[in-house]
């Protein structure tokens, strides 16, 4: 049954320890020496923020981790978070030519962490605000997109005011990533230098449509970077029953309180097979669930979790049920006791294959906790309230919208991507805002 984890504090801290421990200097230099210093480097091209990977690795190799950190943070101010949580196997490391040469890539993520940790540990600062332009920008949302945008705008000399609905900054970066990838403390420490650039942050400050209208009057430009909201509803019976939880709430608890207070079921069923599903499944195991099953309508060939996350799930002993979909949450004595599932047949090829329910194939998967990880809906009610059409809002890759002075970026412009994508979105929006404020958009 659902309750506080039964694992000891020691066991929990072991389970939630860094997935990839930090490199020592010897490890960093040894791995850095495998970097070929490619020309027009594939790793750099594969990085959404365009970090000059060969350059920062060379700086590590030549014992200059401070310069390496500057190279990274210059392009990606959340380089420390990305070093921990990026799906490097499909980004920089997926492009690394050492995969062909040595059957294994340079461990770029861990090298990036080595450099950014060095800068953090030594409290190094590399950037200063630009000379004041007299222009002011309001940023709604303090997640990766908002932070990256605010940082870039401060470097350009614009005044930045940031509004955050929660009581801590960072958005999903702070409370939405498994704690063994990014800890709350780390996320907050990485945000500190950004705020030091002179960002006026208002916490516990939800912006509604009326206020948005007012902000558009008061500020020269406004960025909406409010991220994703609740998980998509399944719209099946029993969905609001006790024991049915949302993936982000499940992750959130590991960031807001001590791990010993986290709640987990004994038999956990995860609905969905994306990267968030993989995160909650492995987290449920680490919180002490005795069995965790992932159920997905399609198969492991179509699942949207990266191969690496899938391997992590398998290593954590998670079971998989393919080609099944939930049709009802089953109640016993007022509590969740299982999920009625139905087999489906895939008609067609790949992710476009049509799902054909198999009649009479229903069965109940027993569980005392069901976690919905089915993708989240962009928080666009804010925009919706303004009467604007959320669907047709974003006009270009610099966050420009059809509304004069209103910009948009980050997860709320799509259905969710990586931190690194949000950072790049924020950077691009800052470029768009800067051009707009200087009158040459």
């Amino acid at each position: 049954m659902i309750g506080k984890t039964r694992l000891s504090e020691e066991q929990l801290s072991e389970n939630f320890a860094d997935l990839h421990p930090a490199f020592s200097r010897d490890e960093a230099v040894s791995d850095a020496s495998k970097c070929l210093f490619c020309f027009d480097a594939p790793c750099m091209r594969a990085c959404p923020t365009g970090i000059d990977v060969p350059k920062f690795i060379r700086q590590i190799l030549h014992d200059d981790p401070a310069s390496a950190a500057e190279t990274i943070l210059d392009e990606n101010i959340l380089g420390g978070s990305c070093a921990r949580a990026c799906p490097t196997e499909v980004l920089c490391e997926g492009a690394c030519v050492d995969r062909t040469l040595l059957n294994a890539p340079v461990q770029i993520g861990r090298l990036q962490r080595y450099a950014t940790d060095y800068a953090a540990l030594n409290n190094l600062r590399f950037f200063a605000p630009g000379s004041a332009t007299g222009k002011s920008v309001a940023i709604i949302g303090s997640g990766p997109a908002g932070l990256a945008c605010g940082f870039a705008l401060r470097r350009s000399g614009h005044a930045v005011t940031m509004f955050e609905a929660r009581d801590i900054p960072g958005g999903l970066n702070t409370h939405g990533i498994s704690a063994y990838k990014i800890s709350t403390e780390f996320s907050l420490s990485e945000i500190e230098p950004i705020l030091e650039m002179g960002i006026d942050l208002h916490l516990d400050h939800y912006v509604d449509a009326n206020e948005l209208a007012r902000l558009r009057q008061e500020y020269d430009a406004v960025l909406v970077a409010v991220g994703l909201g609740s998980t998509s509803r399944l719209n099946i019976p029993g969905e609001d029953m006790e024991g049915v939880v949302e993936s982000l709430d499940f992750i959130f608890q590991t960031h807001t309180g001590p791990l010993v207070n986290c709640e987990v079921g004994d038999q956990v069923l995860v609905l969905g097979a994306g990267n968030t599903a993989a995160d909650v499944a492995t987290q449920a195991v680490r919180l002490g669930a005795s069995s965790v099953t992932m159920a997905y309508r399609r198969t492991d060939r179509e699942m949207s979790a990266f191969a690496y996350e899938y391997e992590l799930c398998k290593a954590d002993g998670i079971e998989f049920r393919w080609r099944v979909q939930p049709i009802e949450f089953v109640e016993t004595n007022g509590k969740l006791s299982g999920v009625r599932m139905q087999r489906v047949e895939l008609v067609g090829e790949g992710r476009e294959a049509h799902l054909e329910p198999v009649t009479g194939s229903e069965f109940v998967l027993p569980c005392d906790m069901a976690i919905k990880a089915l993708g989240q809906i962009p928080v666009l009610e804010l925009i919706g309230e303004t009467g604007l059409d959320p669907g047709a809002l974003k006009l270009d890759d610099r966050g420009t919208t059809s509304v004069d002075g209103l910009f948009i970026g980050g997860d709320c412009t799509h259905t969710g991507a990586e931190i690194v994508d949000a950072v790049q979105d924020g950077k691009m929006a800052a470029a768009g805002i800067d051009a707009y404020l200087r009158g040459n958009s």
Partner: protein
Amino acid sequence: MSNLRSKPDISANLAGIKSPNPFWLASAPPTNSGYQISRAFEAGWGGAVWKTLGHEPIVNVSSRYGALDYDGRKMVGFNNIELITDRTLETNLKEVRQVKRDFPNHAVVVSLMVESTREAWHDIVKRTEDTGCDGLELNFGCPHGMSERGMGSAVGQVPEYTKMVTEWVKEVAQTPVLVKLTPNVTDITQPGRAAREGGADGVSLINTINSIIGVDLDTLAPIPQVDGKGSHGGYCGPAVKPIALNMVQKLASDSSFGIPISGIGGVQAWQDAIEFMLLGATNVQVCTAVMHYGFRIVEHLTSGLENWMRDKGFQTLDDFVGKTVASVGNWNTLNLGYKVVAEIDQSKCIHCGLCYIACEDGAHQSIAKSLMSEEDYPSHGSAARLTSAGREYLAGAGDGYVNRYEIKQETCVGCNLCSIVCPADGCITMIEKESTIPRMTWTEYQEGMASGTMDPIPPPDHV
């Protein structure tokens, strides 16, 4: 039929000093004592040159060694400010005698260095040979510490002194005498000839090169530091091999030289040893590699040499010693009508672009870059194609493209640079092409131009 072949004979004979194989330990810290040399012989070394003896033990400083590390590789180069033996002559000679008794078939050579008087040299030569050692090596090479006292390279840098001291030694020596030469000279043939004229039975080279290995960027003190100060030291290790090979070849090809050579300088792998021998050395001496890894390296030096000899069909060392000496000549004897161009095997290319940027910025702008379609992507191993979340990720691809590199053979000057920087084995090779220039040397070209029978060769087509 099995492929088992008999082992070649790798016994060596340098100026009458015989050893079961051509691998000797050079006079240096690994040959400081009977204990070490006994262990080395047990490990398989063919000979050893005892760390230089003098009449009185010297006093060393602390620290003494420094290293040149390169991009994560330790000890690519090495230097030291250690002096000759710091043990008494009596102790050393007692141990030489014991080692020779225990290992009668191994070469025990003793390095000597004393003040430059006939009496001093006569005395130490007699006392040393009384141990039953197989030969003597005169240390005219040490560039630090002893040279300031009129010994070591102070002798080796002046051919007249080299000849004179060698003569003194030869007046009393009963065993073969090798003269160890310093590379800290402009022309190695001068001290080489002087040694021969003095009666030396052979030479060994190179001793260490004068050097400062580095500066500590925290303390700003030189490395190695002694109470914050440093001194010029002797440089050795893998990085000095090319300098040593050149000097060995110079002497081996000098018609007025003509005595055996023991090659020294950066031997770490079997290939290094063979290169020394092809360029004229009868055997090799090793120090730095042993200081790095210990005596056991002789096992793979030996196996590598034997395997190579079998592959090449050489039965004895004499079959190949000096075989490359005559192939080295002055630049103006080279054939201007010979042409190679680079060729990239696309199936082996990993798309690192190192060839391209090296040629573009560092050489002759003769590699073309274009975008490759995924269909053209080589069929590397499975690791190069990774499937994740239903998508395939190609190593070498980024931002939606893969670079394809191709040699512009019409402008390629055949410099080798791309094939040198390419990390993928066998990907870039140099292919012989027909040249538009007829077979001729630079000298013949000059003569042809002067006599009006030849037109100037047009410069290469660069961008």
